[in-house]
């Protein structure tokens, strides 16, 4: 497939509208967009899509949309919303997709910030939000909707259905066909194509301006990297405002000319995935985890023969599946035979149920993925890989090449991307896919892009001995131990949290001789484990202080230490001593944020006496803490906490791939 599937190189295809027209001419009959509507997959081919986009663009022009205007696009993944982005770009405008599940007040900020005059929205729900905030956004003159359901009685000025606008556009295009071609030919690759707003976890959202050239460059390098072409297809189900969806479902689809498939609704994604069987797939780790849980639960309910077959062949897959997928030598003939049998009996049907039968390349990103989870998918023959990027870099900084997969790295820099590690460990990136600027925020732009043209990602990382980038933490959290070695608390904590017995961990080590940690056990997993061993306990505090539980956690920590020791950079970060906290860290007690991130400084202050004990020779420490109960009352919890040493390992240069 790879040779025939390669996208042809044609000069002058430097903006998205030109790419679209090109596909309309050269592969007009091939499917471009599919949507499941009324239970049936409807298909538009490239020439139809090109015509629809022309009609939409002409209609927008008729309503007064001009070069440089911003067009808000709000809704679930719908073909017409993707086309709306292309239509705006035809006219030299900028598409501004918004998160469709945001409440009206949040949208108001973006609409004001981007001075939105035109919004194309999916349905009544979004129209209602627009009308609600219209008074705060005086510029918003036109609200165009895709699905007219429930909108029959709306008579507000400026409200129109996309259908009408496109009909208007069609007659306009018919009368002056040269108009839209003229507009498209005036487009420059350096024009801003799309503006994606950052999530705004740190302050107000910022509009990231990306040019045609940057997204096309990013998409092209991705397509070449994984040999994507017109024969591929993808399920477009992630929010359109997210850079990943824009890259995969819009930019790469336009560059490579492959098919995008819009699911029927958010609830039907799993069924739709199975029906479409995409060849290219993206999902955050959470989705992969949910899928695996579903499979495991259903296997528990399966008959005994099936269950034994599943267990047996999953053991085979764990042993050699990843190696077989990577085509690495050194797999015993018997294992190859067993794997082939397993593929026929278990892995193949399982991939089919998951909708992954045809997947050539699957990516995950956005959060750390557990090694077991990652290995599971690879071992059943799904080519799952990781990538690294951000809104500012078109989500295309690093990718894992086929056959060089590690669960804890994000791969090698993409073609044409230069990655450098700053003095303080921060990852700096340079390349054509960088943002042009933050919208109307020159100070932020100057802060993010330095004089040499490097973008400061805010992430800390380093290159391992194979040249793979490892992202370890947010740069501002990274410290140094007293010995001068780098200390990345988040990285260590994530490693610990991958163990099902550990729910939460807090690592200390900045300015200290060694790294120590607080542990919260996972009540469900450890409780279950204790019950199977007939260890009786009364509650969390009691269970946490049981000797066998300490031993269990120590084993986990030593496993993590052994892994850390394999990396010379991280070897000094091994956890020397730990204790299990007498209470679970809780947002009600301000120890965690509402999104369950540890408030490091607060915890360090609250439990200062425990930290001191960790760095002393004591093997236990008394603590009394105030806790808030769910009904708002507060009480005291006290315990004598044991402190335990964990074995640490000498640095070693031994290599082990995932």
């Amino acid at each position, binding site marked *: 497939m790879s040779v025939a599937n390669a996208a042809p190189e044609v000069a002058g295809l430097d903006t998205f509208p030109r790419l679209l027209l090109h596909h309309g001419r050269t592969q007009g009959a091939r499917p471009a967009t599919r949507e499941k*509507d*009324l239970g*049936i997959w409807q298909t538009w081919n490239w020439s139809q899509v090109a015509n629809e986009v022309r009609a939409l663009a002409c209609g927008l022009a008729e309503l007064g949309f001009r070069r440089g205007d911003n067009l808000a696009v709000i809704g679930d993944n719908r073909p017409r919303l993707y086309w709306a982005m292309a239509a705006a770009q035809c006219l030299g405008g900028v598409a501004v997709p918004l998160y469709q599940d945001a409440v009206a007040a949040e949208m108001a900020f973006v609409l004001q910030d981007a001075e939105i005059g035109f919004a194309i929205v999916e349905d009544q729900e979004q129209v209602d939000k627009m009308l609600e905030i219209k008074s705060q956004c005086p510029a918003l003159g036109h609200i165009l909707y895709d699905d007219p359901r429930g909108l029959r009685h709306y008579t507000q000025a400026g409200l129109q259905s996309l259908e009408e606008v496109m009909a208007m556009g069609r007659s306009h295009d018919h009368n002056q066909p040269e108009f839209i071609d003229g507009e498209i030919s005036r487009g420059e690759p350096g024009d801003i194509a799309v503006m994606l707003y950052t999530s705004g976890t740190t302050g107000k959202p910022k509009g990231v301006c990306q040019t045609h050239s940057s997204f096309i460059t990013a998409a092209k390098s991705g397509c070449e990297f994984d040999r994507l072409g017109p024969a591929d297809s993808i399920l477009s189900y992630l929010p359109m405002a997210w850079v990943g969806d824009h890259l995969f479902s819009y930019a790469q689809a336009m560059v490579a000319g492959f098919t995008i498939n819009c699911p*029927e609704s958010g*609830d*039907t994604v799993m*069924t739709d995935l199975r029906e479409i069987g995409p060849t290219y797939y993206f999902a955050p780790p959470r989705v992969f985890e949910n899928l695996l849980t579903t499979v495991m639960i259903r296997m528990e309910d399966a008959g005994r023969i099936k269950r034994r077959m599943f267990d047996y062949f999953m053991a085979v897959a764990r042993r050699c599946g990843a190696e077989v997928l990577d085509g690495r030598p050194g797999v015993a003939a018997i294992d190859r035979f067993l794997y082939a049998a397993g593929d026929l009996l278990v892995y193949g049907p399982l991939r089919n149920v998951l909708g992954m039968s045809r997947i050539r390349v699957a990516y995950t990103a956005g959060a750390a993925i557990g090694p077991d989870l990652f290995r599971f998918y690879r071992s059943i023959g799904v080519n799952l890989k990781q990538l690294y990027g951000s809104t500012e870099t078109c989500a295309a900084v690093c990718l894992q090449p086929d056959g060089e997969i590690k669960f804890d790295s994000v791969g090698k820099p993409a073609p044409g991307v230069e990655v450098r590690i700053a003095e303080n460990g921060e990852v700096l990136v340079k390349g054509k896919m960088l943002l042009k600027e933050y919208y109307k925020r020159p100070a932020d732009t100057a802060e993010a892009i330095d004089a040499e043209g490097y973008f400061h990602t805010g992430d800390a990382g380093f290159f391992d001995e194979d040249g793979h980038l490892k992202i370890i933490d947010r740069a501002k959290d990274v410290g140094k131990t007293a010995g001068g070695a780098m200390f990345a608390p988040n990285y260590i904590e994530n490693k610990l949290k991958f163990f099902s017995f550990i729910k939460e961990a807090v690592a200390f080590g900045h300015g200290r001789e060694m790294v120590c940690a607080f542990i919260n056990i996972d009540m469900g997993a450890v409780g279950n484990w204790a019950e199977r061993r007939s260890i009786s306990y009364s509650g969390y505090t009691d269970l946490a202080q049981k000797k066998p539980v300490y031993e269990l956690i120590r084993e986990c920590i030593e496993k993590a230490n052994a892994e850390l020791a394999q990396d010379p950079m991280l070897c000094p970060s091994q956890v020397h001593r730990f204790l299990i906290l007498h209470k679970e860290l809780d947002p009600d007690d301000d120890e965690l944020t509402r999104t369950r991130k540890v408030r490091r400084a607060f915890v360090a202050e609250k439990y200062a006496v425990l930290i001191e004990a960790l760095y002393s020779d004591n093997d236990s420490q008394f603590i009394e803490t105030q806790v808030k109960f769910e009904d708002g009352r507060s009480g005291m919890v006290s315990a004598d906490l044991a402190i335990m040493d964990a074995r640490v390992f000498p640095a070693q240069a031994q290599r082990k791939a995932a």
Partner: protein
Amino acid sequence: MTKRIGEVILSFTNISLSFGGVNALTRIGFDVKEHEIRAIIGPNGAGKSSMLNVINGVYHPQQGEIVFRGKARRGMNTYESAKSGIARTFQNIALFKGMSVLDNIMTGRNLKMRSNFLLDALYWGPAQREEIAHRKKAEEIIDFLEIQHIRKTPVGRLPYGLQKRVELGRALAAEPAILLLDEPMAGMNVEEKQDMCRFILDVNDQLGTTIVLIEHDMGVVMDISDRVVVLDYGKKIADGTPDEVRANQDVIDAYLGVAH
């Protein structure tokens, strides 16, 4: 929002129904106008369900006259009533539990199907075309009620609230002129109730279906109905807009009890 409520489509005068010595309904008279949402409320045993059963021909009143679309209706059975454009849902869900949502909704198309058994069995020619047309209609209803994700799920596996929605879907599949809903919100949680209200209003608004509903939840009734008729011990004690009914002393007495 201006609603176009039309002429009287269905009217009752002097309806009396008794089972042996029990008078279920005594000289009831009211009417239903086209495109309106008409609620029948009342305490337990007031005769609400009996009234609904009279409308769709399950019970035949001993006395009184029913006029449907200008024609007096006498002794009409359930089949004829369904055929004339009256569909209903039930207080206790009456779906085919082992069949999928889609199949259940397709059964609602039964009365509209024309082709014969043999052609259907062969799935040939007109039968095939007809099946496709009916399936399209069923899919429109699935889309309307937002139940795409459970299209192929057996109804028995669904939570109660969704089953109620499927039942509404099956009634809609008959493309009725009048839709009778027997306690559509009974046993639902707040969120399910809100969803159901929205669907009832959407059906009324977009399909123009006239709706007669029985409901216990007063909040719901007062919010969504155009006119309300109140029954107590088989007698009509009030009839009017929600505000009028709310202010009626007899209604307050019937619901809150009265000191004798």
